[in-house]
């Protein structure tokens, strides 16, 4: 179902504008704050941060073991700014295990490494179904996971944030870390795409 079937965005945008204009009247809001938000989430944080982590883990086995043991500490060296993750747990896809991340109660998501979540991650369908029928949900994404693989779903119900370390592409062995990072998709780090 689309979340906008019965309600054009104008309904919410008018309500937001009404609240904003009243707060402006009362001197309680900074009008420039909206532009700052747009710059922050368009330019400073996004899945490019997670992609750099993944590519480094593929190239550097020592970093990879540190990342899987303590994701929060391992990513300190990247000095990402904006959007904190208090505790990051990185879960590894292997030939035996496929991981996929969700937040059934809300939309908890590792902003610092992946940016703001896509709309489908926050929609009822994904949140409802992926803990119950993840293989069928993955089919919606064009991904087939063999029945012999263990499928681990991570429901981010507290403040710990999860990110998937995808399996590297089979033809990427001779590529540089930078070239590999460009091939890592946001969806692969949520666990709904393969590379």
């Amino acid at each position, binding site marked *: 179902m689309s979340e906008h079937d019965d*309600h054009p965005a104008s309904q919410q945008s008018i309500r937001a504008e009404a*609240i904003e204009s009243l707060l402006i009247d009362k001197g309680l809001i900074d009008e420039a704050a*909206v532009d700052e938000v747009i710059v922050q989430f368009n330019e400073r944080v996004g899945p490019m941060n997670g992609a750099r982590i993944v590519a480094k883990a593929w190239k550097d086995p020592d970093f990879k073991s540190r990342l899987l043991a303590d994701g929060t500490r391992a990513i300190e060296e990247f000095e990402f700014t904006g959007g904190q993750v208090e505790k990051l747990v990185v879960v590894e896809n292997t030939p035996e295990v496929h991981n996929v991340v969700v937040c059934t109660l809300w939309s908890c998501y590792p902003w610092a490494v992946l940016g703001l979540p896509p709309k489908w991650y926050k929609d009822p369908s994904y949140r409802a179904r992926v803990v119950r029928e993840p293989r069928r949900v993955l089919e919606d994404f064009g991904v087939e996971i063999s029945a012999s693989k263990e499928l681990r779903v*991570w429901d981010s119900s507290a*403040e*710990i944030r999860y990110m998937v370390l995808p399996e590297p592409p089979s033809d990427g062995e001779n590529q540089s870390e930078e070239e590999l990072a460009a091939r890592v998709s946001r969806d692969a780090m949520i666990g709904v795409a393969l590379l």
Partner: protein
Amino acid sequence: MDGIHDFGGKQGFGRVLREDDEPVFHGRWEAKVFALLGAARSAGALMNTDQFRHAVERIDPVAYLSHGYYGRWLGGVENLLVEAGVLKTEEIAARALELGANPAWTVAARPFAEPDVVDYEGEISGSIRPLVTKPVFRTGDRVRTRSFGTAGHTRLPAYVRGREGSITAWHDGWVLPDSNAHGRGENPEHLYTVVFSGTELWGVESEPGLAVHIDLFESYLQKT
């Protein structure tokens, strides 16, 4: 609370719909909601994230399903602004009408007439609170989750209640959302990752090889 937001395992929603080349914001108003949250914080109407999450859970359930992510946030922030006395519902409605709103539209916000008094914000930022008390459970322990929900905020979803699982990780102490959301203090508890098998959650209809991992607070759990 057993609100509409607790989606895990609900059936009938259909395919996951993806948007090609999805922009970060679909309209300027979505980014505006972040600015409104900042203003609510400055005005003392929003003290912590748990309080905000509960404010969003309390919006009109039909709006929760139909107003989209930022529409839900907007309803939550309106709840908080009205409950703190910063704005009045009537003045928001009047201003919205001036700006072209249709009086028949569903308003997401449902502010409480007698809201919780949430004036507490921890001195330490974040939610990690290392504890001196020993954790009750160890990795590998079998545990059963509490069977019932509560009227207030909780991070124990309905689909894992009364179910048996195993502890796979211990994460030391964290602020308890169930308490913090209502201004009743941080009351940090040990937090664990618990794994449930697909068959424990969904019975014989479970997909093969399914293991659902979820982070749960100590008071949600008991030894089997």
